[in-house]
Structures are given as C-alpha cells and as structure tokens.
C-alpha cells in the first residue's frame, strides 16, 4: 500500500540527529508494547507480513506524527480486533477502570510461556521455503521492476517501481509477503537482490548518480529488461 510507512526518498523530514547513546527502550511502556507484540504474535494467529500490514494501515499523517512503538501498538490492536480477541472499546473501558488483569492461566497451549522465551526467540523462524521454481534470471541480468500500486501490503517501495537494475544475488525461495499479508497463505517465490544506480532512481541530475542502492526483490516484482 502507498502508506505513510513507504518513506524512501521523502523530503522535509529534518535531520536524523543521532544521540551518542540511548537506552534500548526510552519509556517503560515501549518495553511492554514490544513484549506484548512478540508474546501475542507467538500464538500464530497472524504472520509477520500481516503484522507489518496492520502497522502500515495507520493513517499516514498519524504514522508520521507517532513513534515507532506507537505503530506497533496500533498494529497489535488492529490484529487483536480482527481476530476477535479484543472488542472495540474494550481497551478504553479498561483504561478508565484500571482493574489489574488477573492471570489465571493460559488460554491454550500456544501462549508463549516464560520458560520458552529464550529458546523460542533463539530459534526464530526463517521465511525461507523449499520447492521454489527455477530461476528466471541469472546474476548480472538486467531487469525492470513492475509498476504496481496495490492498496494491500507489498515490499516493492514506491521509489523502486518501474526502474531498471541488475540482478546481484539469488537468495532462493522465500514466503511472498504480498500474498501472506492478505490471506495468510505461504506462497513461495524466489528472492533476488537487485542493484540500481542513483541516476536510475533519482535522475541523471542527482548529486551522486553512481552510488548504488540495492533492494531485495521477489520474482513477481521483476521482468526482463
């Protein structure tokens, strides 16, 4: 989707202003929002691409005004409501009555238990898939990206649509996010790294036309140039 998250090349956002040092979490609520998201997601009701889509669905103005973990909080609320795990208005009601939630046991055996945290996160879960079809492109091939503007999730950013580049790496088969985000189905597509010149992405007149920008591109995003 052409949302507030698709930021590559946007102007007017000001300096980056990196601090020399900073804590992992700036506020206690950020840590809680982070942990809630990971813990709730581990139940498998939604996948990573659906999480990303839920965060991107924030109104663009609001997305740019709010902080990173507010995006996460928004995404988590959207997913929980979609799954019927919380009802509309339930959070607001709880904010008013401040009753602490009593933990009386797991809803089911898919809830991430404390003693499984280190092992589960240490194992992760690769998006790599077996059974990918034969490569359409070889390293060094010239390709052109397609021009799409789906209202749904895609990992082809606006600044790299309808651009010509060169295949640099072939990573094999991976879950295709555009489909996984919409209906949860794991469709296997080949993933390439494609290089583009500054001139191709930003115009011949850009300051450094020879700088190289590389993006990971799924096979359906590409056609032979």
């Amino acid at each position, binding site marked *: 989707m052409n949302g507030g998250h*698709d*930021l*590559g090349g946007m*102007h007017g*956002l000001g*300096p*980056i202003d*990196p*601090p020399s040092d900073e804590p*992992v979490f*700036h*506020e206690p609520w950020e*840590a*809680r929002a*982070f*942990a*809630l998201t*990971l*813990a*709730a997601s581990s139940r498998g009701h939604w996948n990573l691409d659906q999480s990303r889509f839920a965060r991107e669905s924030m109104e663009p103005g609001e997305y*740019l005004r709010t902080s*990173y973990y*507010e995006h996460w909080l928004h995404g988590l*609320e959207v997913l929980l409501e979609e799954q019927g795990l*919380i009802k509309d208005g339930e*959070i607001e009601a709880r*904010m008013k009555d401040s009753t*602490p*939630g*009593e*933990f*009386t*046991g797991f*809803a089911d055996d898919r*809830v*991430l*238990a*404390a003693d*499984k*945290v280190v092992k589960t*996160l*240490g194992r*992760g*879960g*690769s*998006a*790599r898939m077996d059974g990918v079809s034969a490569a359409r492109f070889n390293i060094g091939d010239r390709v052109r990206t397609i021009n799409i503007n789906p209202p749904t999730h895609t*990992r*082809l*950013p606006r*600044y790299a649509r309808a651009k010509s580049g060169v295949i640099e790496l072939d*990573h094999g088969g991976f*879950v295709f996010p555009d489909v996984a985000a919409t209906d949860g189905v794991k469709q296997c597509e080949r*993933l390439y790294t494609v290089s583009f010149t500054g001139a191709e992405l930003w115009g011949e007149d*850009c300051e*450094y036309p020879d*700088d*190289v*920008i*590389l993006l990971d591109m799924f096979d359906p995003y590409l056609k032979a140039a």
Partner: protein
Amino acid sequence: MADDHDHHEHDHHDEHDHHDHDHQHPMSDTALRVKALESLLVEKGLVDPAALDQLIDLYETRIGPRNGARIVARAWTDPDFRAALLANGAEAARTLGYEGRQGEDMKVLENTPETHNMVVCTLCSCYPWPVLGLPPVWYKSAPYRARAVNDPRGVLEEFGVRLADGVGIKVWDSTAEMRYMVLPMQPAGTEGWSAEQLEELVTRDSMIGTGIARDPQEASA
C-alpha cells in the same frame, strides 16, 4: 511476576494509580493504553506476564551490538572465519552462538577501500537482532529511512563520517527477510591486536554502515 521485575521502575500489575512513582508525572495516554491492553491480554490468558519480563530482559541485557562486535573482531583476526562469514553470515554467526529471531537469514557486507556499505529499511525497521540487538530510534525514524537511499553521503556526514574521494557507496534497503550487517574495515595500526582488544573498536554504527570502527588512538585516549 513480583519476584522478577528488577529491570522495571515499578510493578505494572500492582500499580493502581495513574502516576509514575519515580518521576511524579502523570502517565501518558499511550502508557495507560499499553497498561490497559496488557491487563486485558493477561486476564484473557493470551500472554504470560512473566514471559513479557523475560522478553524485555532478553533484549535489554542479553542481545545487543556486543554480539556483532565479537563477530567482527573474530573476522579481523581469523581469515577462515572471515571467509565463512562473508559466504553465509547467519551460518557463521551461529557457530559463535548468535542466532534466532530476525537473524535467521543474514548476509554480511564487506567494507573495502573502494566500497562503503550502509544498511536501511525504508519500509519499516528490519535489522539483524541476534547480532545487533533492537535497532536504535534513529534507524527506525522517518528522516533516516527517507534519506539513506537518496542522500547517503549527507546522512554519513551527520554521523561524522566523510568518505575519501572515489569511495563508492552501496546502500542496502532491507525490503525482505534477508538481514544485513556490515563488516567494517579494521583500523590501521591495529595489526597484531587480539580479538578482545579489537572488539572495543567495533561500534554498533560501524556494523550498520553509518559509522566506521573507532580509531585506536582515540579509543585509548
């Protein structure tokens, strides 16, 4: 939960008022909202409150950029490991015990006198957690995500890095599930240093590509 919240300023479940004990500021709406959501999810049995504390502890104290620094220092001192790391970053990191969520498939990018690599995620915040920990705020911020791809030299200048004339830039936009970590160049004058000594020169930013490894003179000053 009561016995396992050393890292938090207060116990979120026992806190009945709307004030932060330590700072005496009213809790923000967002903080209240997160607290309400946590209370609901705990009550519904969808999250284990002790698991939340474990998750926070894991990424606050155990998984961070010192992991990556150890990998880099090893690559600088062990040519075989360096070759393995560049061939398959995730696999080589695993041999040192660093693996897991958001680092399942990882490529390591070698900085050379000709090429400087820099990593961004313009669409969200993709970052190799097992080796660098959670990303800093600036990495996830709109200005960095917007400018890294069309003004990388301007970005580097903000980080105090000026590349020599003729050095090419490669910016890697992490748009899929491959994660990228930069192998910075070993600083001149550190030949023969031990991996432990070299580790101290490896900054987080040098492994994102918005920095270079610390100068040994400066580091010892």
